[in-house]
């Protein structure tokens, strides 16, 4: 099976700061992947590496089994919508479509025309005059009409109002259903992803914290609530992600392939948001510990 994205120990450094490091991922095709993490976690860096705008400082990366931007064909198989959806301000919508047709071998003119028509946009309008939502839709149209095998979208809805956000995601889901395209979509808001994604990658502090199919992740992660205690009696396969105590009670989020059978715990189901927040909290905690130990060394 081909991988949509296969990264081995991938890293990108700016000066002395690593924007992404030790990233090992194997995302199969056929998923809508949510790439989630706080601002500055490395989401844009990972997507720019995937589309060949950046080249890695370490490790390797294959996208649809080829090095990113290695050929015109490879570029043609990937639709990319960059953050803040850049368009050529002084060119009209029609000219943008002409550009797409001229530069992409598999360009679907009919699809592009139809999308502009459905969106109610005037083809002669200059792209600089479009609203944020319309511009995002234009950028998505350009990416879709390439008929890509993989769509990469970098915070496509971050700057949109709730209505435009919903319309954008609805369009995206139609495309996925119609054209069997894999999608990797970044966002710092879990709510956006919950509706559309079936696979999640949590990036925080320049590292991948967890990744996998959402269904699997939710069935192997549990929130345990019980009377206050140490966490010694958990099964071997269980990893504690997050633990908090009150005077009387202990709450823990653990990942465990085996079911938690200890009757003294009440086991609760988790939402995607809980899961993501737990891993982001873990990354933040590790960062603080690291800072403290570095400070102590000095």
């Amino acid at each position, binding site marked *: 099976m081909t991988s949509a994205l296969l990264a081995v120990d991938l890293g990108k450094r700016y000066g002395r700061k690593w924007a992404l490091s030790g990233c090992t991922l194997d995302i199969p095709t056929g998923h809508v992947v949510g790439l989630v993490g706080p601002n500055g976690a490395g989401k844009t860096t990972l997507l720019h590496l995937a589309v*060949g705008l950046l080249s890695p400082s370490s490790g390797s990366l294959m996208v649809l089994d080829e090095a990113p*931007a290695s050929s015109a064909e490879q570029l043609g198989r990937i639709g*990319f919508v960059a953050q803040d959806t850049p368009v050529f301000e002084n060119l009209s919508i029609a*000219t943008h479509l*002409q*550009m797409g047709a001229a530069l992409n071998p598999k360009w679907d003119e009919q699809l592009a025309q139809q999308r502009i028509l459905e969106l109610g946009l005037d083809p002669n309008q200059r792209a600089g005059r479009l609203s944020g939502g319309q511009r995002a839709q234009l950028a998505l149209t350009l990416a879709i009409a390439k008929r890509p095998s993989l769509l990469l979208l970098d915070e496509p809805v971050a700057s949109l109002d709730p209505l435009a956000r919903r319309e954008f995601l609805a369009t995206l889901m139609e495309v996925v259903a119609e054209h069997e395209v894999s999608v990797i979509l970044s966002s710092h808001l879990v709510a956006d992803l919950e509706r559309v994604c079936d696979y999640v990658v949590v990036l925080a502090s320049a590292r991948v914290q967890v990744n996998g199919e959402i269904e699997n992740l939710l069935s192997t992660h549990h929130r345990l609530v019980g009377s206050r205690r140490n966490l010694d009696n958990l099964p071997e396969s269980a990893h504690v992600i997050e633990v908090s105590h009150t005077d009387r009670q202990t709450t823990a989020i653990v990942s465990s392939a085996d079911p938690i059978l200890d009757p003294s715990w009440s086991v609760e189901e988790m939402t995607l948001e809980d899961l993501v927040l737990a891993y982001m909290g873990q990354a933040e905690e590790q960062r603080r510990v690291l800072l403290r130990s570095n400070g102590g060394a000095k």
Partner: protein
Amino acid sequence: MTWFAWRQFRSQALVVFGLLVAVAVVFLITGPHFASLFHDLKTCRAKGDCESITSSLTSGQDTYFPFAQAFSLLLPALLGLFWGAPLVARELESGTYRLAWTQGVTRKRWISTKLAVVGAASMLAGGLMSWMLTWWASPIDTVNADRFSSLVFDTSYIAPIGYAAFAFALGVTAGVLWRRTLPAMATTLAFYVAVRVPFFHFIRPHLLTPVRQIRSLKNVGNIGFERTPNGLSFIAGDTNLPNSLNFSSSVVGDHGGEVTRQWLRDHCRSMLQQVPPNPGKGVKVTTGIRPEAFTECVDKITAAFHQVLLYQPANRFWTFQWIETAIFLVLAVLLGGLSYWWVRRRIA
């Protein structure tokens, strides 16, 4: 990609080529008038009224020429600023590089097509302006007979094609390195001037070994004496060599040496005695000198000294045009190569 490179460049191209059309209209209106004056000048010798024709030809020059020459001189710099500098910088600045470089076209092809399309347009614009100016100004250039002067050499014939290519490539390179349009434009202008001005002052005269010629002082105009704090010193003007690039001229004795004050004291005593010791301000050097004494002294100098000229003769004009064009084209190719490499390898 060629179509899209042109499409993005179209409005900038229209501005410059629109200006060139305006210049062409002015030239077409005024050009035939100069040409007919020049025709009259060639036939006037029989009738003898050449002076009025020459003066109306040169007064026409005073009205239009500074503008035409300034425009031809500035055009390459403008191309570098407004075509070269934004070519890549504006894409990086506005973020549209993320759209442009993720279409089904490699970055290699993107940058090479852009360089080729806009670079060719720059050379075309520079060449057109030069060609129009060369045609329009040919009567006056013939009368003035100073093709090697900077105002003619740098604005006409083929050299402006090289300048245009160079300025464009300089602009692109500055834009690629700065990644922002405005500082790139400032850098382009600064470097363009910093290359062109020293080139024409210091490098052009040395491109070929100058011709050395020894001439009798009899043919030299503007011979005379100059008052200095230490007494009189001899001066001689340049010999007029039409269309040549004068390098240096000096007065040398038949057995070496210059016209020193000691030599003047030894040989022109009768003249020196007539020079008032403290003439006061504003008094002419020759005040109080009898013409016979002056002529006698000059004759003695002419007999013992000659003028040594170093210059690039008129028949080397085209050689110099080709050399200079080639040098600037090579610089343009090197800068273009640097931008190409930088866009492919360093912006990542």
